[in-house]
């Protein structure tokens, strides 16, 4: 009878932490990096989860051991043996060194294999040829150029599902990072350099992307819409952009785009200068200007466009 | 024979086997005390050793600073941004004179320290003076080099490569200049206070500093000038 009460009390006591841990886990599961839409993201996420589980298998017993040790050997516990001179045991040392070493050897293997598998530079094996998208990070918006389709968009990325997308990424001002959480890996966007990234969406969905490297006052609004659509819808979208009344992205339009601005609504360009991305990446077109240098009336404090555009 | 009846040598061997790190009493309080090793036998080192050692550690940190500038140079060596290349700005002949001046100044610095050890104020001052003059020659030659380059429009603001070049060589030149200021102060101190303990310690530190600058210069002159010069060895 007493045992039954004990068991049910124990169960009730453990239930709420378990429930909260579960809800914790579940909450992290939707909409974020643990809810991947494509194989890159899936690989990344599975590595993250596997590594966590393996380490928890070591960490949880260690924490429990620590608390048990402290509790059992508390000063008020007369039953615990007092060994005032005991401070060395070869056997314990051996175990204590080998637990972390073995764990880390395993993690090292995961690192080695994983880093090569999800190397951003590695093309995704696929029967469909990849879609080429060139990405330019500006202050404070994202420009996407589709070189083969001859169109461009700002803060809006439309990709066909089940097709690998090859991103060539640069920045026209400061460091940024191109990141679509549900599609997987991120990579820095750097001025004067072109980073490569391959991602793929498994099925149609609405997603969002952001910059993951602080780039100034307008950084908080550097999100962009991502839509993965069936192949036919993608072709339709491309056609509608080409045919529609949107402006053309030539040098003049680009020069205007380079000025700092925030909360830019998604826009499209029906035509794009074929050399534009190359010239931006090689800095033949100089990088975008920064904030106004301070005048005497601001005495050392830089003028910010924060929130006012 | 020791208390336990064993010969001293056997007791010593046994102690080493039982307590190889000379940790002393493992079972607190009961066994006979054991002398420590190294500093454990003598206690703190002398002030002279402490001062010299601390200054060595400072020199190591200074060399880390130089390493960063060397690394930047290595990275940016080719970043000429359409401007002049390293080969076009290196002047080996002038650098030969600079190197000679600096190496010679290290030699005279060592001579001055020998004079200090012999407690000869006259020769210490003479050799310190020569060291200072040679250092000044070095700095002036370097200033001349920079001025000439600037006159041709070759400035650190032109490209990444020039930035690292001027930065690295300039950093060394700044160190030599500060060393020169220190040398002047030391000469004044030696003159007024003679060879008091602290003065000798400072001279040790100064010597270490000056020789270290020499070593760094050998690095610079090899990596920047020798490796950066074209085969004929003449400047542009």
């Amino acid at each position, binding site marked *: 009878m007493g045992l039954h009460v004990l068991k049910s009390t124990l169960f009730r006591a453990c239930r709420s932490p378990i429930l909260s841990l579960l809800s914790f886990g579940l909450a*992290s599961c939707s*909409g974020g990096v643990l809810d991947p839409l494509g194989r890159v993201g899936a690989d*990344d996420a599975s590595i*993250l989860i596997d590594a*966590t589980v393996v380490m*928890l298998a070591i960490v949880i017993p*260690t924490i429990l051991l620590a608390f048990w*040790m402290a509790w059992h*050997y*508390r000063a008020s516990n007369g039953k615990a043996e007092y*060994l005032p001179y*005991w401070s060395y*045991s070869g056997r*314990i*040392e051996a175990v*204590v060194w080998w637990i*972390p*070493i073995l764990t880390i050897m395993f*993690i*090292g293997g995961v690192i*080695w294999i*994983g*880093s090569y598998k999800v190397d951003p530079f590695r093309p995704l094996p696929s029967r469909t040829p990849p879609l080429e998208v060139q990405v330019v990070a500006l202050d404070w918006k994202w420009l996407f150029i589709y070189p083969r389709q001859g169109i461009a968009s700002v803060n809006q990325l439309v990709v066909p599902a089940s097709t690998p997308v090859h991103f060539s990424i640069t920045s026209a*001002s400061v460091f940024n990072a191109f*990141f679509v*959480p549900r599609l*997987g*890996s*991120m990579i*820095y966007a750097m001025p004067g350099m072109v980073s490569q990234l391959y991602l793929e969406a498994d099925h149609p969905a609405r997603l969002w992307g952001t910059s*993951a490297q*602080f*780039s*100034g*006052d307008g*950084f*908080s609004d550097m999100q962009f819409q991502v839509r993965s659509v069936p192949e036919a819808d993608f072709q339709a979208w491309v056609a509608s952009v080409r045919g529609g009344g949107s402006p053309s992205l030539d040098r003049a339009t680009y020069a205007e785009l380079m000025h700092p601005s925030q909360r830019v609504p998604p826009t499209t360009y029906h035509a794009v200068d074929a050399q534009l991305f190359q010239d931006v990446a090689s800095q033949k077109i100089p*990088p975008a200007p920064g904030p106004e240098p301070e005048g005497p009336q601001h005495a*050392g*404090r*830089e003028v910010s466009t*924060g929130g006012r555009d | 024979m020791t208390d336990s009846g064993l010969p001293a040598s056997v007791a010593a061997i046994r102690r080493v086997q039982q307590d190889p790190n000379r*940790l002393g009493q493992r079972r*607190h*309080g009961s066994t006979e*005390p054991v002398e420590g090793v190294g500093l*454990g036998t003598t*206690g*703190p*080192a002398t002030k002279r050793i*402490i001062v010299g050692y*601390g200054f060595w550690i400072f020199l190591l*940190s200074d060399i*880390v600073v130089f390493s960063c500038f060397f690394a930047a140079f290595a*990275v*940016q060596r080719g970043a000429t941004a359409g401007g002049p290349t390293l080969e076009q700005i290196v002047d080996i002949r002038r650098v030969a004179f600079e190197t000679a001046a600096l190496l010679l100044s290290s030699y005279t610095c060592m001579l001055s320290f020998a004079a200090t050890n012999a407690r000869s104020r006259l020769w210490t001052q003479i050799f310190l003076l020569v060291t200072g003059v040679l250092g000044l020659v070095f700095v002036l030659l370097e200033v001349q080099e920079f001025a000439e380059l600037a006159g041709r429009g070759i400035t*650190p603001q032109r490209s*990444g490569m020039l930035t690292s070049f001027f930065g690295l060589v300039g950093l060394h030149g700044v160190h030599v200049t500060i060393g020169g200021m220190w040398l002047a*102060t030391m000469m004044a101190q030696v003159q007024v206070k003679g060879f008091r303990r602290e003065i000798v310690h*400072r001279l040790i530190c100064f010597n270490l500093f000056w020789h270290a600058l020499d070593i760094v210069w050998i690095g610079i002159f090899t990596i920047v000038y020798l490796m950066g010069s074209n085969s004929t060895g003449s400047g542009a």
Partner: protein
Amino acid sequence: MFGKLNLSAIPLGQPIPLITSLVVILIVLGVLTLITVKKWWPYLWREWITSVDHKRIGVMYSALGVLMLLRGFADAIMMRTQQAAAINAMGYLPPEHYDQIFTAHGTIMILFGAMPLVLGFMNFLVPLQLGVRDVAFPTFNSVGFWLSASGALLVNVSLFVGEFARTGWLPYPPLSETAYTPGVGVDYYLWAVQISGIGTLIAGINIVTTVLKLRCRGMSYMRMPVFCWTALCACLLIVAAFPVLTATLAMLTLDRYLGFHYFTNTAGGNPMMFVNLVWAWGHPEVYILVLPAFGIFSEIFPTFSGKPLFGYRSMVVATLFICIVSMTVWLHHFFTMGAGAAVNTFFGISSSIIAVGTGVKIYNWIFTMYGGRVRFEVPMLWSMGFIFTFIIGGLTGVLLAVPPADFLTHNSMFLVAHFHNVIIGAVVFAIFAGMDYWFPKAFGFRLHKGWGIAAFWFAFIGFWVTFAPLYVLGLLGMTRRLQHINFPEWRPWLYASVVGVAILILGVISQVVQFVVSIRDREKLRDVTGDPWDGRSLEWATPSPPPFFNFAVMPNVEGEEAYWGIKQRAVETQQLSPEPQYEPIEMPVNSGVGFYTAFFTSVFGFAMIWHIWWLAILAFAAAFAGFVFFAWRDVHEFEVPAEEVARVDRARRAAREALLERLSQQGAMS
């Protein structure tokens, strides 16, 4: 005439910094007035400002650190409340202000809060634990402290004159170059950090030389307390890594002031080089913070378990291992910068390998408790909190060391939660544990236990409630440094985090109350014997607080845990060791050179920031002149007469007789 400086540098149009500055200025003026009215200046000047005593300098470092922790915490409160308030809204802190706050928060917490506290502990304890009278270069020590204070001053001045950097605590170019940050903010950062970096380097050189060349007789390497080993390794890292910071910030300064092209966007500049260099410093920096923290726990576990540290040699090896490997892992801070799989793999594996050393240490602390009699005093509570918190932080760290996992979580709130997890779990908890543990030694009376327990629980629970939601937010895709949030579904987690901040505020209040109450009740909490915790290392052999010369006669150490051996022998023989032969002691004289140099260095820094060139030259010349003037002094040391030494020591021995009686009674009862 005044460079870029004019009256509009004062933020009259911005209420929050204006009011904060006014409050701070009023408090500072109030304190200065109080000191003047009470005529405390001569005492403060003689005993503290010009002191070259490592204990005084250690206390001053710690006081500076605690003050700056409070300022950093205020920034943190603003950050978390802003993010909670600014969901689909702009919140109460515009971007230009918010960006300064998170930059100041990181800079202050790491460089002006945690570093001074760690340096303070090392300064106070290392000479005492090694049985010597002071560090290797006492006057230089004072210079180092005042330079650190000078840097802290400059950061705080930026609150009401001009602005602070808006780039994040590591000012990545091109954002930090003049083109994208023309204001003085980054210049404040550069000069403040550069100046205090020199101070830290000085402290590092000092402690390395002390540990390697200045130990009492019998104190060989393997008899040193583990805290001294960790102090040695941390300071070796300082000597190896801080020059990298000096060089890197110098390069950025040259870029900004003279138009050089180290890291610019164009003309051959290389911003990636900055990232590499700065993290080659940045990673060792966090080990500089954490190794002494480990050392503090290595002192606390044995004392409060009543037995020696388990696996001393392993601990030493693990410490050296961490020290060396920490210099080889810096790229894990930018796996996403596209270095390629081979490079990422190397650095991922080396980063994971550090976990081996840390894991060994944790198990050794656990097994120290095995067979012990664990007393749950306040330092031990912090230690148990540390074990729980730090292990989990370490887990997330190894996770981030796996490049594919990092590709998802780099620069996200997951990262933010991780590094707060390890820094707060190890460094902050260690600082509070160490404060509670060594406060009686430094000041002669213990801290109030009840308020200490309250402070611990609020801090522990508050930490988890604040940061656990941030792990979730990171996994949901939230990146760091957002001034406003465009995703309402993140609301519950952001609100939960603010609840945690409220609990932490209670913790901070409890900590402050603990100090106030302890000072008020100091007679009741007085530590008469000098050994309130039944300690094992040499600092507990001195009275509380120790006399300025530390030991009347330098100890002759005969084994590990030097003081424990002395105590056991005294208990066994029922008497203290015989009264020694007292000799006169030479101690270094006080000197104002540190304060003087730092004062002019602050002026120099301020002048450089605002481009007031004539003032910069004058201040530099004055600092140099002061140095030469100081170098000219004839008297370096003074002699403490043998009678004075004897008098002080006899008082100590009387107190020890009382302790001996108490210990013998306990021995008789057990």
